[in-house]
């Protein structure tokens, strides 16, 4: 029995399909759901944490159905939403103790001390949250989530808005929890973090899984080199070159993928020159998760060009 099991999980907001027949199983690993804004990441997490009712399909946490056995599911999971909701007028200890008591665990005070210690917040435990930094607030939320020793931990954008050092610390804690046997389900759009810290990633686009596997396998699957061209002016139309795929454009940088980068580079240069574009430099590298992502969800432009009106509808419904 896997910790998280979904089968054709689907969610419609009116006519907008936010999550489309998602089938996944996650167990004893750090699993990252990657996707552009509005791709259905948060909706998925909310269905798995019993905060939203699926339109179709099913999902189970530790064998318990999220619709029929809501309470059993909630007993086994912890959920840290991306909003950073901690009471700033309460101390760190009071914030954690509240959750310890709400979970109804035995000796809540000792457990509170313990998790504050794990999250390295003991010496600031009696200060008001008002005085905490963003990273400390996030760690406090992790402490709240850990008081009842959940089997599955859901983290929605755990490192959003944090500085590099704070992010690294959060990930170290998450890795440690995973080592102790917890299943961790995160959503993020930081590719480098998913690449470095997660065991397996699923790339979601328009509510569907577009790629699934370990970061290494996904990069290897691309079997391609990434060629980046610095150009003086942006070509007007799309550049079509046989055997080369244009995957994105950012500022004066155009990115291509090709089976053999070395052979593709002169072709790219010639094609661009033919369009009247001066190439100032060309470089080649191994693919990163960014390239896997762009390959899976389309070009950078496509990823951004979602329907704003539909996105508003979804946000409104999700609240």
């Amino acid at each position: 029995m896997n910790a998280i099991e979904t089968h054709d999980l689907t969610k419609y907001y009116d006519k907008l399909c936010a999550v489309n027949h998602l089938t996944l199983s996650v167990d004893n690993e750090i699993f990252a759901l990657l996707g552009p804004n509005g791709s259905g990441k948060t909706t998925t997490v909310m269905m798995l944490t019993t905060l939203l009712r699926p339109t179709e399909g099913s999902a189970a946490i530790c064998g318990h159905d999220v619709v029929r056995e809501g309470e059993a599911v909630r007993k086994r999971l912890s959920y840290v939403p991306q909003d950073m909701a901690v009471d700033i007028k309460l101390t760190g200890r009071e914030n954690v103790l509240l959750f310890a008591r709400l979970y109804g665990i035995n000796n809540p005070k000792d457990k509170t001390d313990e998790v504050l210690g794990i999250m390295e917040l003991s010496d600031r435990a009696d200060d008001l949250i008002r005085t905490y930094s963003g990273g400390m607030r996030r760690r406090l939320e992790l402490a709240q989530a850990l008081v009842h020793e959940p089997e599955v931990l859901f983290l929605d954008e755990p490192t959003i808005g944090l500085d590099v050092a704070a992010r690294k610390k959060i990930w170290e804690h998450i890795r440690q929890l995973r080592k102790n046997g917890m299943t961790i389900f995160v959503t993020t759009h930081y590719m480098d973090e998913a690449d470095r810290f997660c065991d397996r990633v699923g790339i979601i686009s328009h509510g569907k899984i577009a790629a699934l596997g370990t970061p290494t396998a996904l990069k290897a699957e691309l079997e391609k080199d990434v060629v980046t061209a610095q150009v003086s002016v942006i070509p007007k139309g799309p550049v079509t070159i046989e055997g080369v795929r244009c995957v994105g454009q950012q500022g004066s940088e155009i990115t291509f993928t090709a089976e053999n980068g070395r052979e593709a580079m002169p072709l790219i240069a010639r094609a661009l020159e033919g369009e009247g574009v001066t190439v100032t430099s060309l470089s080649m590298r191994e693919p990163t998760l960014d390239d896997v992502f762009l390959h899976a969800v389309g070009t950078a432009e496509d990823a951004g060009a979602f329907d704003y009106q539909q996105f508003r509808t979804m946000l409104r419904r999700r609240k």
Partner: protein
Amino acid sequence: MNGIKEYITRDMIKWLRSPVSVVSMLAMPAAWLIFVGLALPVTFTGNYLDFIVPGILVMTMLSSSLNGGTLLMFDKILGFLNKFLALPTPRESILFGKILFITIRGAIQATIILVIGILIGATILPLAQYGMIYLILLLFGFLMSACATTIALYLGDHDSYSAFNTMISMPLFFTSSALMPYDVMPGWLSTIAHFNPLSYAIDAVRAAETGTIPLIQIGLLALLGGIVIAICMQMFRRVTV
């Protein structure tokens, strides 16, 4: 108590740690008590302060309830509600904790107003009568805080709710029996006042002060409270699934 106590404790600490909100919510009823209760030249009663105290106590409960309507709405907007809903604790505890907290907070404020009233000359009553008065105030508090919470959840944003709050609170107070007895009112006002739930509570408190048990008003408040809490639970379920 399945989490209700914890939710109340959380709100209580947050409230007590913001002295400005504790004092500011008392300023309006205290001002009415002192500047109107002591100063208004009325001819229908010898001790106007004694007449107005029940109205001001109910007003205190009303403003605490209306202000409290925003609490659950903000928990929802700021993401606390989602965290609480993902807990194995019964979900209704969130709602009942909120309604109880708002009511208890109102009762604490009403107590302070009552003490101020006594200090400036209101008649001291036997203990049993105070017990009856508190029962009425608590019933009224449940009714109004469930009402305010439902409307705030329905409206969903702070601006709309505070507009609603401003619109409703004063007219509700002026069209009740808080400031004058029915026989002094103009006919049209007396008709409105008879249908105003504030009047039920105020009349009940006045009756309790004379030593009678106002069964009809208590029954009406309990019935209305039951209906509103049922609607409120329905609204809560609608916004949480």
